[in-house]
């Protein structure tokens, strides 16, 4: 009820501080900080525990069933060092990232633009809805033979495979985010005489941004999968090519070294996009903080 104070002195200078700078009891703050950091340390400790558990598990499995079933973690490490130092991994990474980044960027651009059309124009949305969902429901690997026939086996064709994979999730979450925009806010904007154009850009689109960003996150994950599949199925290249070569020769330590890199890429991409979401959405971020 802190606002009641301001109300009575309407129109006079106020001494109230904005909420962010409200005076806090240093003791309370310190205690809360301590509690949070204890929790954080516990989480980190448990995570390290999980990693140790996995490594020990790998050693045990290796001891029981041999190198083919499960390589020794130390061999995986040695192989990783070797692949990084002789440039194999770097070359593979560069090839993969080219396909992944270009495929994802085209998918993001076209998916967001298309989603704006589908969500912003009711008629367009209604006409295309069944087709979009049919195509989205088709596994993107199913398009690979067609892409090979049309575009060949190399980088451009792989980019197109990634684009197909990532396009639909981005398209659909953009369209549904705009379509399900907050009617109350739209009516508010219209009641002030805002044009359709302004309502779209300043109300519906920002309102849909969380949905668009989560579409991008899904799209990025799907694009990573698409990149590896394209590299396995088409002209072998990049990390997917390394993966398949190592697998075919049963060099499981090499195989695992590549898998580790793929895991890191996936984590970095989704983590990065989550960070963007977090920074961008001041209001959502602080809502989350409040719930901590």
């Amino acid at each position: 009820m802190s606002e009641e104070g301001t109300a009575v002195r309407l129109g006079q200078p106020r001494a109230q501080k904005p909420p962010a700078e409200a005076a806090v009891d240093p003791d309370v703050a310190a205690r809360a900080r301590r509690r949070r950091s204890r929790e954080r340390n516990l989480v980190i400790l448990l995570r390290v525990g999980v990693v140790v558990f996995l490594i020990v598990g790998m050693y045990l499995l290796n001891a029981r069933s041999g190198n083919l079933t499960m390589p020794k973690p130390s061999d995986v490490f040695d192989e990783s060092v070797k692949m990084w130092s002789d440039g194999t991994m770097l070359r593979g990474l560069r090839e993969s990232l080219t396909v992944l980044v270009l495929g994802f960027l085209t998918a993001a651009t076209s998916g967001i633009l298309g989603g704006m059309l589908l969500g912003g124009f009711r008629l367009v949305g209604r006409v295309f809805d069944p087709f979009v969902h049919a195509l989205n429901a088709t596994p993107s690997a199913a398009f690979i033979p067609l892409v090979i026939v049309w575009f060949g086996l190399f980088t451009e064709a792989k980019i197109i495979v990634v684009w197909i994979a990532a396009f639909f999730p981005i398209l659909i979450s953009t369209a549904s985010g705009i379509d399900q925009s907050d009617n109350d806010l739209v009516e508010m904007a219209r009641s002030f005489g805002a044009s359709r154009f302004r309502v779209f850009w300043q109300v519906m689109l920002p309102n849909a941004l969380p949905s668009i960003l989560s579409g991008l996150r899904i799209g990025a994950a799907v694009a990573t999968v698409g990149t590896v599949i394209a590299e396995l199925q088409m002209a072998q290249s990049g990390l997917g090519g390394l993966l398949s070569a190592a697998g075919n020769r049963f060099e499981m330590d090499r195989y695992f070294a590549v898998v580790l890199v793929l895991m890191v890429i996936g984590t970095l991409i989704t983590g990065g996009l989550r960070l963007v979401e977090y920074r961008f959405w001041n209001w959502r971020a602080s809502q989350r903080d409040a719930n901590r």
Partner: protein
Amino acid sequence: MRTGDGPASSGARPPVTGPLISLRGVGKSFKDGQVQAISDISFDVEGGEFVSLVGPSGCGKTTLLRLIDGLIRADEGEVLVAGKEPRPGPDLAMVFQSARLMPWRSVVRNIEFALAVRGLRGRERHERAMALLGSVGLRDFANAYPHELSGGMQQRVGLARALAVEPKVLLMDEPFAALDAMTRETLRRELLLLWSRRRTAVVFVTHDIEEAIFLSQRVILLRPRPGRIDEIVEVRLPERRWELDARALPEFVRLREHLWDRIRNMVREGAELEELGTAFPDAVPPPDPPRS
């Protein structure tokens, strides 16, 4: 009373004779005519007048406001604002039951939204928004986000946003209904004070009879299914009501008794109105407040 019958004269404003808002035999139904929301409603509001629409929920109060704002068109009859068919925009501004602030914009940017619709830019727009925030006592919260504000403060921002565009008519749809009793009382007084300074015409919707009497110069009592006018009563209370406890004045008590009588009659009149008793929180008027 029609204007605009003659040839359109560019530049010269058509002389506005008669009331600022005028409704004549207005009817509106929804769902292809299955739900008759309101029927044959006629009343006028003069410039600078404070009029309340009172009635149980479902009697078409919101529909009336949306008709006056020009968000929807009447099926029958005629709605005129300043002699013309209303269009959302220049002359009208709405305040809603929930503040309807854009959560991704800071408080001041929310107000700037309405000003931008009016074509204000840059510094001027910002300063105007800050001035309005000052007038509702929230200057220090300009850069806060809506979720950091209490319900009462959010509602003040909604009011400031509406006042910012200097409307001829302020349309308020149960703006205080979701607030706690203390905040509600404070905001009523603030609203009266602001109105006494600005003399904007206000059409105030509420289902709280005391609130209607306390605030307005005229109370329009509606009855439901379909929404019709039951009675229009003048409120002859002193101007500066925020300075005293108007509820203790004999005129206030008399009006409240009278309006409750009408509502009890509504309840008695038909089986179809059975729910009415529950639509008003307590169909028996509360005892006179203790004189302070």
